[in-house]
């Protein structure tokens, strides 16, 4: 427990979190501070490129682990299942319509890559050496949750357009392609490739992450300010309760797979995190009647800050405790 508090305090005082806080504050104070869209998108490409490549190079370094396949399968299964838990919890807690509840559920089955990156940084600082292929697990978890949500809607009222093109579009969305592609290139080129581009993807990484989280803070804060009206207490409660539930399920899966403590913490984080890029876009296409303000606010305004500040250190502490670390 002491460990947990120390970790949480440490985490809260890291520049990464403080810059997120600065963005949040600026948004609420209605400052005109903003990061140009192109720059924010450029930084997110950078982060995907960097973590994908480093993950691949790490797998090349450690050799392919027998658990790689089971971890990927576990990721897919988690992404399929968590939406059902989320949907059930929402129906109990709130009065959301089927469509809105399913749309929210899809977000929680999928993942937030920035939360994953922040978690990796905390796990690294704790001296752990997680499985490099967790990056690939993250990629696998992006999409399945969308199918679960569409099934939930189709079951009840036949709505939800699952057009042919949509699945392809989701599987080939830019983030997944760049993450997986960089992972494979990192794997193929290994330590030599990493040495060649490390001054770009390793040393300045944390600094870029600070700037990126400044922007996330701005966007999350602005979203929350605009959508306060939609955020009734039951929804807020959901946004805070769901992540630990997801993390618990992820923990079980990770133990079954036999991940290292660092890998466990990352899988818990992935399960606890909620998407705010790929899934919202898919929902606008497939479930246009679902209210975007609800799912975006929950995912970006509530769950993302919760995981970033309290969730990640908690998941790490639990993972270490359970692994007897």
């Amino acid at each position, binding site marked *: 427990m002491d460990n947990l508090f120390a970790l949480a305090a440490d985490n809260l005082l890291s520049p990464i979190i403080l810059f997120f806080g600065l963005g949040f504050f600026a948004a609420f104070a209605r400052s005109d501070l903003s990061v140009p869209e192109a720059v924010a998108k450029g930084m997110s490409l950078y982060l995907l490129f960097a973590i994908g490549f480093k993950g691949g190079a790490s797998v090349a370094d450690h050799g392919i682990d027998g658990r790689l396949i089971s971890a990927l399968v576990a990721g897919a299964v988690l992404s399929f299942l968590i939406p059902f838990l989320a949907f059930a919890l929402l129906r109990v807690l709130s009065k959301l319509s089927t469509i809105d509840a399913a749309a929210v559920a899809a977000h929680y089955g999928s993942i937030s890559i920035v939360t994953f990156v922040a978690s990796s940084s905390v796990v690294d600082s704790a001296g752990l050496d997680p499985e490099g292929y967790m990056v690939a697990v993250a990629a696998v978890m992006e999409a399945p949750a969308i199918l679960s949500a569409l099934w939930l809607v189709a079951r009840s009222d036949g709505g939800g357009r699952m057009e042919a093109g949509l699945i392809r579009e989701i599987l080939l969305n830019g983030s997944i392609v760049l993450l997986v592609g960089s992972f494979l290139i990192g794997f193929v080129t290994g330590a030599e490739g990493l040495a060649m581009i490390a001054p770009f993807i390793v040393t300045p990484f944390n600094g870029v992450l600070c700037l990126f989280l400044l922007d996330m803070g701005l966007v999350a804060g602005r979203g929350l300010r605009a959508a306060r009206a939609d955020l009734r207490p039951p929804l807020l409660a959901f946004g805070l309760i769901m992540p630990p539930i997801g993390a618990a399920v992820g923990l079980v899966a990770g133990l079954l797979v036999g991940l290292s403590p660092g890998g466990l913490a990352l899988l818990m984080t992935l399960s606890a995190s909620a998407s705010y890029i790929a899934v919202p876009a898919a*929902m606008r296409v497939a479930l246009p009647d679902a209210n975007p303000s609800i799912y975006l606010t929950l995912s970006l305004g509530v769950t993302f800050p919760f995981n970033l500040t309290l969730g990640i250190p908690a998941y790490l502490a639990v993972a270490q405790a359970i692994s007897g670390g």
Partner: protein
Amino acid sequence: MQTHDAKRVEIIIEAVMERRLTDALSEAGVTGYTVLPVLGGSGRSGQWSREGQVGRAAGMVSVICLIRPDRLDALLDAAFAVVDRHIGVVSISEAQVVRAERF
């Protein structure tokens, strides 16, 4: 200069639907259009601005089509099949074009 009647249709639509809209237009035989970026706006579903977006989920674009008046209905049918349940606005105005053979 000799000009000809045309219709100018302006469709403000979610960016995620852009490709679906332009595909539908092409299928309806509308092969001329121009897409403009949108910074922000306000409507029944509230106010938004490009700055407040992490991804492309909630952005919008404006699609402008100049067409011969007799093809307006085909265009509107195709557009509404896509826009229908989505956030967005369609408006039409009279216009004159110069090189009519192009439309």
